């Protein structure tokens, strides 16, 4: 199994979720994160003093998929999250050696 970790723009979350669902993927986990990259943060000015906010709000999606579905899921996320503008984010993939469904104890691909 593989874990896809995608860092995307927050307003693309629903599109990505729906795209993955229509691919037959049934579960994913989302976190609010802040990113730093080519897309820069901004400065806020309060009473004349500048405050640098280096980070941009992003959403991290983690989805574990079967080996066979990795390519497709990767492309699905990429397509759905793409706006063509800087800061669209990244997808990273890595190996997962075990997966267990807590409720049933099922493990491996069945657990997904």
């Amino acid at each position, binding site marked *: 199994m593989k874990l896809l970790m995608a860092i995307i723009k927050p307003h693309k979350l629903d599109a990505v979720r729906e795209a993955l669902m229509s691919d037959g993927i049934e579960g994913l986990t989302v976190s609010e994160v802040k990113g730093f990259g080519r897309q820069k943060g901004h400065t*806020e*000015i*309060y*009473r*004349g*003093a500048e405050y640098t906010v280096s980070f941009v709000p992003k959403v991290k999606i983690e989805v574990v998929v079967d080996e066979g579905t990795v390519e497709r899921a990767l492309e699905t996320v990429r397509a759905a999250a793409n706006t063509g503008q800087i800061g669209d984010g990244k997808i990273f993939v890595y190996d997962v050696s075990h997966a267990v469904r807590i409720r049933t104890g099922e493990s491996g691909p069945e657990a997904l």
Partner: protein
Amino acid sequence: MTKISAKAVLVAASALLICAHSVPAFAADGISGGDTAWIMTATALVLFMTLPGLALFYAGLVRSVNVLSVMMQCFAIAGLMSILWILFGYTLAFGEGGHLIGDFSRVLAWGMGTEAASGTIPENVFLAFQMTFAVITPALIVGAFPERMKFSSILVFSVLWLLAVYVPVCHWVWGGGWLADMGIKDFAGGLVVHATAGVSALVLASLLGSRRGFPRELRPPHNPGMTAMGAAMLWVGWFGFNGGSQLAADGGAGMAILVTHLSASTAAVVWMLIEWVRFGRPSLVGFVTGVIAGLATITPASGFVGPTGALIIGAAAGVLCFFAVGMVKNALKIDDSLDVFAVHGVGGLLGTILLSVLMSPVFDGPGYDEGVTMGDQLVTQIIGAVATVAWAAVLTFIIVKIVGALTGGIRTSEDEEIQGLDLVSHGESGYDLH
């Protein structure tokens, strides 16, 4: 003739009686129900300025790990100052005494009861109204030291400051002291409240030292909406602060409210425009800082100017306080963290001076006391301002030294500052939203 007049007296007396009956209670003793109603309302409004107004205003500007500590400081000051006021503050400020300080005739308001009058209102209402001023003034200074001052030091400082700075200046100006004798005009506390708090804030902040990371690496206000809602409450409450200072429900109070509102509006709009031009977009924190600047500045003048004067004062406040904020940070390099001096100190002094010009009928003002010229008034105002600034600065310096000795230093450790005072000083956390 005697008989006739007796009859007439009788009739007239019964007229009086009915008349007295139709306006019960107060006819006999010169206390006006309308005035009393208004000053009790004003008392509630001024308490509302500190709690929750000022507490929200300040708490929104700090880091989220200090939000509770700022509120706690406002609350604890409110509690302590109130007790102090009934014990010694009121009597020393408003007891007859001499030119410099009152006396001990009213300790604990003993014997005052419900009958004693102060003008057309019960004296207990006057005492309570003034108590809310004695609460908010030291609470304003909280803006100088958030995120890094020991809680024990804050409490001791506030107690000493009330007695040594606020009470004497209050007596000089409002309690029949030497500035009152000179004819100083300070309607609702440009000197007594804002100048004393502002100057003392600056002195205290410079002795305390800056927050870690000042001025480059500070976190922005953690909750500007909280600050704005606090400002809204201050704005509303200020109707009681200035309108109540008339001590009557009449056209003088009405005018004070009107000019207060106009000054706040104008200063805020001016601040917004300056930000728009300089930074490309006007901020909410900026707007509401302008509101407070306009309110502080009109305070001493609110009984002595008309709407035209109010627009001028508001505009001047917006411009001057805006630049003062930058100057304290960049030129003086003092971390008066929430700009107490630049907003309240500068505003209070500005209004104190400007009123001597704007009282004039030329600006639709009510004019000067008999025999007083604009120049005379200006000189008096300047003397009052200089005396207040000097007294507040020197005494604050001395008090801070004393407090440092009493509480083993006035500053929290760097580690505590990093962690935040909510946890360190009060064992609590501000937000557990999950």
